[in-house]
């Protein structure tokens, strides 16, 4: 049952990295550039993980977790996308960049569920706050602290739920789509691989609060491109 172990190991990473997003630490191990290679390393293919991290990192980097805003769950997309690519690669016999792209294209829409689960966890935390208020009126400070820590469990459950949605629906979708899409993806993969960071970069350029951002971007692009071209 090696695949079951892989699913479980990736679930563990999904929970730990998911907690890092909001509830605990925030060392940014939840960023795709970290979470995906770590998942790949644990599942025995760090290069696939690094590839996923490169593709996904810029996509939602410009979406800031400010106030009550909940950005899309790129952590679970990175973890589950990597796990899917490695596990389904072994199952279906397709591997490499086209399989990684297929898994990401499947995982990304499914990752929208993460925002819903995160919102549910935060709503449930409101109930914990009510309980904490009551406990404090009764002079039970230790209970108040326990209610706070229960929030970690709720956020962990939200991360796990998102991971399970992506992995379960993703496994079926990749299984069904791979035979039809892999030849096309093999053909188009260099261009789709380029589209990911370009779209991500465009979103950052479009939303970053810097005057002359287009000028700075263009100047840097032209300078580096000319340098590479005339080498």
């Amino acid at each position, binding site marked *: 049952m090696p695949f079951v172990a892989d699913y479980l190991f990736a679930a563990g990473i999904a929970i730990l990295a998911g907690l890092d997003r909001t509830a605990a630490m925030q060392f940014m191990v939840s960023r795709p550039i970290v979470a995906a290679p770590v998942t790949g390393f644990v599942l025995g293919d760090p290069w696939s993980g690094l590839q996923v*991290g490169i593709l996904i990192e810029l996509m939602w980097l410009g979406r800031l977790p400010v106030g009550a805003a909940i950005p899309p769950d790129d952590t679970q997309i990175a973890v589950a996308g990597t796990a899917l690519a490695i596990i389904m690669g072994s199952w279906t016999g397709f591997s490499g960049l086209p399989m990684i792209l297929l898994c990401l294209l499947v995982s990304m829409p499914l990752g929208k569920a993460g925002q819903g689960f995160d919102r549910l966890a935060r709503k449930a935390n409101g109930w914990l706050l009510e309980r904490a208020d009551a406990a404090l009126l009764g002079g039970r400070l230790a209970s108040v602290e326990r209610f706070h820590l229960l929030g970690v469990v709720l956020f962990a459950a939200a991360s796990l739920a998102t991971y399970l949605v992506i992995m379960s629906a993703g496994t079926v979708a990749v299984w069904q789509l791979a035979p039809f899409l892999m030849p096309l993806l093999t053909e188009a993969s260099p261009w789709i691989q380029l589209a990911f960071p370009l779209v991500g970069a*465009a979103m950052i350029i*479009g939303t970053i609060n810097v005057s002359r951002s287009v000028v700075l*971007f263009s100047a*840097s692009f032209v300078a580096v491109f000319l340098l590479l071209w005339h080498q």
Partner: protein
Amino acid sequence: MKLSSGKLPPWILMRVLLRSFLLQASWNFERMQSLGVLYVLAPALRVFYRDEDLVLACQRHLTYFNTHPFLASPILGTTLALEEKRSRNEAAGSIDVDEFKAMIMAPYAAMGDAFFWGGIRPLAACVALYIALQGALWAPVVFLVLFNVPHLAFRIGGLVGGYTQGVRLTQVIQRFRLPDLAIRCKEGTVIFLGGLCASLVFKCLQGEKVWSGWGFTAIPVVVLLGWLGRKGVSNLILILIFSGILLLLAR
């Protein structure tokens, strides 16, 4: 009932520091980080107060609170200093702890969001991506180091500094000019992104044996996509449309 007459023991301050990493564990829409603030401060409040005074102090901190999680540390450190004064009845003439928290949390939230989320994080990610594109597996380590050095400096230094210096720490933090630093980081990010995109486009064209001059068309494409993003078009939609078109062309 007043209890403490000395400084907080270092191990209590250490417990407060460790707990600050769980500040947002019970983040909720009603009062956001309020329960987290009480959880972080609880070990110290237990030293400062007993019985009804302890309950009253806890209730003071169970009110609405929301700021950037890393810049919460200097606020909470200063809060400890103010609570300590209050517990010793030395607070006369100094700012009230509730007033201080209410006054400072919004500006610190704005500064922290701009500096950490909008400045340092994208810049560190771009540097790490550049390294990752060379095939280096240690790129994530670079990202973590670049991000966490200022992060931990603010978390640890902010809490200890806030407790030892009290409200004077706000002047120290002001001297860092975080909003200006954030702008510099953002400009660095945009420049890095330009170089990163140029490398990717050039590599792709070379690999596909397409004339390199076509690479310059990537600039208007990125600008157009950025404009669409600003108008609210989701990047998920954009990448799905892009991929769909490319798959159709590959048929």
